[in-house]
C-alpha cells in the first residue's frame, strides 16, 4: 500500500475501531452498566473523565463499549444497501428491454430522492428502533450502489468477450454471473468501505434524532442524543461520542479512498537501480540534425525498454524506425522530445538537435525547431478550441507574433498542408474535421515554427490506406521543401519502405540493423529484419505457399537477457548468441548490423 498520510491515518483508525469493537464490551462492559446513584449527571472528573449520565454510569466506558454495536449496525446497514443496490443495478442486464427500462427509471428516481429523507421515512414506517434505522440507512444507500453497479455493468456488457458469450448462446444470467459481476467486483468492494463510513454517520444521525437505537441499548448516536441536552452545562459529555463517530467516519472514508487509489494505480516496484550516466561523447557531428548517442530509458524495477541506442539523422533525410509493439520505438521518440512519462528516466551520452544539446535549448527554441506528430491527432489538438486559434498560439507564444499576424500564418500553413479552404477550416473545431484533415492540421502546427526535425510516431496507423498515402506524400513534400529532417516511427515495414531513405530496425530496445531503404527487401542482413520482410504479405505474395511467421514472442523489457534478444526465435542462433551481446558492425555502405552470425 502506498505510504501516503491518508493511508496511514485510515489504517490506524480502522484498526483502532476494529480492536475497540472486539475488546470493548468484555473489558468495560460492566463499568458501562454500573449504576451509581451517588454520581448522577456529573461533569468530567478523575474517576469519570467524560462524566456520568443520569443513572451515574461512566460515559467513557459507555463510549468504548458502544463501538461494537455502532459498527455492527453500520455493517448491517451497508450490507442491506449493497445487496439491494447490486441486485437493482444488475437487473437491467438480465431483464428484457422493457423491464430493464423500468428498473433503470426507478433507480434514477430513487437517486434523485434525498437519502436522509428516504432513511427517515423507511425507519418511521418500519417501526422506531435499531432495526428500523438499519433498514432505513440500508435503503438510503441502495440507490447509489444500484447506479454504480448499473454503470459498471453497462461498460462490461459492451465488451467483446460478453458479445462473444452472447453469440455462443450463453444465457443472460450466466453472462451476468460469470463475466459481468466478477469484472465489476473490485470497484464495488472499494465503494463498500466508503459506504460503511457513511452508514456509521447516518446511523449516528438517526439515533441522535431519536429515530434509532432506543434505551436500554445504546450506540454512539444515542449517547450523543443523551449528552446533547447537557451540552451548555457539561459539554464534555457530548465530546466522547462525537469524537468516536467522527474518527470512525473519517477512518472508513479514507480507507475507501486509499483502496480506490491503490486499485487505480498500477504497482510500481520499489526497487531502484542506480544507472551510471554514460560518458559524454566527443564533438558534435556538424552534418547531423539529430544526433543520439547511447540513449537509455529506464523504469523503476530494472525495466529498460530502450538500451544504448545511437542514431543520426541528416538534413533532408527521412529515417524510419521500425519494430514490433514493445520494441521501444515510441519511447525513443518520446525520449528525444523530452516526453518520457513518469517514472521513467532517460540517460544519454549525447542528444543533440542541430548541433546543440537538447537539455541546453530553451522551451521556445525546442518548441519551434522540433515538431511532433502522433498517431491520434486528437491527442495534439484541444477539442474545445478552434483549429486556427491553436495553430496561431504557437506563433504568439514562441515567436512573439501579433494575434492578426499569427492567424494569417495559421491559415497559410493550413493551406500549405493542402487542407481545402484553409480559412474556413481554421474556424472549425477539431471534431468537425476528418481524421486525415486533423493529421494535416497537426503537421501544419509543426510547420508554424521552422522545424529542424519532425518526429512522426505512427502518424498514419489510425488512417485509411487512401488517406495514409496522402499523408505520406505530404510528409515527403514538407521535408523536401523545408530541408528539415524527419524521424518516422512505424510498425509497418511496407510504409517505412515506401517513405523513408534509411531504416533503423529495433528489437527489444536495441537497434539490430540500420540500412538504406533500397537494401530492405533483398539486402537485409539481420535474421530478424529478413524474417520481418518475409512475413509481410504484399500484392505479389505467392498464395499457394504458407505465409512466413516468426515463432515465439519478443521478450518483455524486464526479461531481456545478456545476449542477443532475438536468439530465442532465431534459426541461426548459437550458444554465443544467448550469452554475449553482438556488437554493431559495418556490413556495407551505410549499413550496420548487430548479429554474430552475419559476416
Amino acid at each position, binding site marked *: 500500500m502506498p505510504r501516503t498520510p491518508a493511508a496511514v491515518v485510515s489504517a490506524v483508525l480502522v484498526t483502532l475501531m476494529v480492536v475497540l469493537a472486539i475488546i470493548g464490551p468484555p473489558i468495560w462492559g460492566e463499568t458501562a452498566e454500573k449504576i451509581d446513584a451517588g454520581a448522577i449527571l456529573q461533569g468530567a472528573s478523575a474517576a469519570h473523565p467524560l462524566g456520568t449520565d443520569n443513572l451515574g454510569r461512566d460515559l467513557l466506558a459507555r463510549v468504548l463499549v458502544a463501538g461494537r454495536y455502532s459498527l455492527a449496525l453500520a455493517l448491517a446497514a451497508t450490507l442491506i444497501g449493497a445487496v439491494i443496490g447490486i441486485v437493482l443495478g444488475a437487473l437491467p442486464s438480465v431483464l428484457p428491454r422493457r423491464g430493464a427500462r423500468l428498473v433503470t427509471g426507478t433507480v434514477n428516481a430513487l437517486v434523485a430522492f434525498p437519502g436522509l429523507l428516504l432513511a427517515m421515512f423507511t425507519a418511521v414506517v418500519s417501526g422506531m428502533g435499531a432495526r428500523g434505522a438499519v433498514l432505513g440507512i440500508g435503503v438510503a444507500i441502495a440507490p447509489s450502489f444500484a447506479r454504480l453497479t448499473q454503470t459498471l455493468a453497462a461498460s462490461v456488457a459492451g*465488451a*467483446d*468477450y460478453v*458479445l*462473444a*458469450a*452472447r*453469440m*455462443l*448462446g*450463453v444465457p443472460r444470467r450466466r453472462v451476468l454471473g*460469470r*463475466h459481468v459481476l*466478477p*469484472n465489476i467486483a473490485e470497484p464495488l468492494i472499494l465503494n463498500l468501505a466508503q459506504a460503511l463510513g457513511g452508514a456509521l454517520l447516518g446511523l449516528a444521525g438517526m439515533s441522535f434524532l431519536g429515530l434509532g437505537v432506543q434505551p436500554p441499548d445504546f450506540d454512539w448516536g444515542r449517547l450523543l442524543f443523551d449528552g446533547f441536552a447537557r451540552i451548555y452545562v457539561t459539554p464534555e459529555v457530548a465530546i466522547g461520542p462525537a469524537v468516536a463517530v467522527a474518527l470512525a467516519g473519517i477512518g472508513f472514508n479514507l480507507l475507501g479512498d486509499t483502496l480506490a487509489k491503490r486499485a487505480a494505480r498500477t504497482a510500481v516496484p520499489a526497487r531502484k537501480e542506480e544507472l551510471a550516466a554514460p560518458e559524454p561523447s566527443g564533438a558534435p557531428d556538424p552534418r547531423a540534425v539529430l544526433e543520439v548517442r547511447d540513449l537509455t530509458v529506464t523504469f523503476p524495477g530494472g525495466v529498460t525498454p530502450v538500451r544504448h541506442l545511437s542514431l543520426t539523422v541528416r538534413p533532408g533525410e527521412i529515417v524510419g524506425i521500425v519494430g*514490433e*509493439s514493445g520494441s521501444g520505438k515510441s519511447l525513443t521518440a518520446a525520449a528525444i522530445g523530452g516526453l518520457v512519462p513518469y517514472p521513467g528516466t532517460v540517460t544519454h551520452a549525447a542528444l543533440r538537435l542541430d548541433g546543440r544539446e537538447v537539455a541546453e535549448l530553451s522551451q521556445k527554441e525546442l518548441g519551434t525547431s522540433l515538431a511532433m506528430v502522433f498517431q491520434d491527432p486528437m491527442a495534439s489538438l484541444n477539442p474545445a478550441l478552434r483549429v486556427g486559434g491553436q495553430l496561431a498560439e504557437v506563433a504568439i507564444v514562441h515567436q512573439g507574433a501579433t494575434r492578426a499576424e499569427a492567424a494569417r500564418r495559421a491559415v497559410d500553413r493550413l493551406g500549405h498542408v493542402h487542407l481545402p479552404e484553409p480559412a474556413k477550416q481554421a474556424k472549425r473545431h477539431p471534431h468537425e474535421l476528418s*481524421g486525415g484533415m486533423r493529421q494535416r492540421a497537426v503537421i501544419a502546427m509543426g510547420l508554424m515554427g521552422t522545424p529542424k526535425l519532425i518526429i512522426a510516431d505512427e502518424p498514419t496507423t489510425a488512417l*485509411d*490506406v*487512401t488517406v*495514409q*498515402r496522402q499523408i*505520406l506524400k505530404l510528409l515527403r513534400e514538407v521535408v523536401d521543401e523545408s530541408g528539415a529532417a524527419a524521424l518516422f516511427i512505424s*510498425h*509497418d*515495414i*511496407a*510504409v517505412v*519502405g*515506401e517513405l523513408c531513405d534509411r531504416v533503423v530496425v529495433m528489437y527489444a530496445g536495441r537497434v539490430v540493423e540500420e540500412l538504406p*531503404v*533500397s537494401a*530492405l*527487401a*533483398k539486402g537485409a542482413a539481420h535474421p530478424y529484419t529478413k*524474417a*520481418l*520482410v518475409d*512475413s*509481410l*504479405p*504484399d*500484392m*505479389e*505474395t505467392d*498464395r499457394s505457399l*504458407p*505465409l*512466413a*511467421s*516468426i*515463432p515465439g*514472442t*519478443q521478450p518483455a523489457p524486464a526479461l531481456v537477457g545478456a545476449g542477443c534478444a532475438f536468439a530465442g526465435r532465431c534459426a541461426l542462433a548459437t550458444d554465443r548468441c544467448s550469452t554475449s551481446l553482438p556488437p554493431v558492425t559495418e556490413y556495407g555502405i551505410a549499413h550496420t548490423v548487430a548479429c554474430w552470425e552475419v559476416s
Partner: protein
Amino acid sequence: MKFTDVTVRFGSFTAVDSVSLEVPRGGIVGLVGESGSGKSSLAKAVSGLVRYSGQITGASRVQMVFQDPYASLDPRMKVGESVAEGLLELPRAARPDEVTRLLGLVSLPADLASRYPRELSGGMRQRVAIARALGARPDLLVADEITSALDVSVQGSVLNLIRSLRDTLGLSILFISHNLAVVRYVCDTVAVMHRGRIVEHGPTEDVVGRPAHDYTRTLLEAVPRLQR
C-alpha cells in the same frame, strides 16, 4: 449462406445499404473497405448483434472473432473456461476433452487451458478466440479484422491457421479487413465495400489484377509496397 438486400440503419444513418452477397460452403469471402464503409456493421448484422432488414439465409450458427484479442477474452477466466463457454450443450464431463481438441485445432498445447489470458501473447489469444468460436460448430465464421492488432511477425501464423481451418474443416468464412494484401492472400473471392454498398465483387485474382471499379483501383494504388 446468402444475404439478400441487407440494410443496417442507426437512426437516420444507413451504415449498410441493401447489400447482397453469398458465401459458398467452404469458401473464404473477403470484405474490404475503409473505416465507415459499413463492413463491420454488416458483420454484426450477420452475427445477430445489430438489427437489420433484409434476409440472411443458410447460416444458423454464426460465430465471430473480434479485432482486439486483448478485449475479447474475459481477463478473469482461464483459457479453458473461456473455450468451454460454447460447449454448454455437452455433458460437463466431456468438456475438458473437447477443449483440448479445440486448442489442438488452433495448434495450441492443451496445458494452456489452465492459464489466464494475461499470460498469453496477442497471437495466442487470437487463436484461443478462434478455438472458442469453433466450439459452437459454426457454419459461418466471421473474422473481423482479426490480424490488425497483431504484430506482422505473428500475423502470418494466424492467416495460415485460417486457411488451414478452411481446408481441414470445410469452414465458411467471412473475412473482413482493411488490408488488401492480407485479404488477397487469404480469400477466394473479394467484395469491396464503399459507403455502405458493395461496389465490386469477384474472384480475388480478378478484383486485384483487373479491378473494374474506380474505387477499387484507388484502394489498390494506395497499398504501401516494399520495393523488391
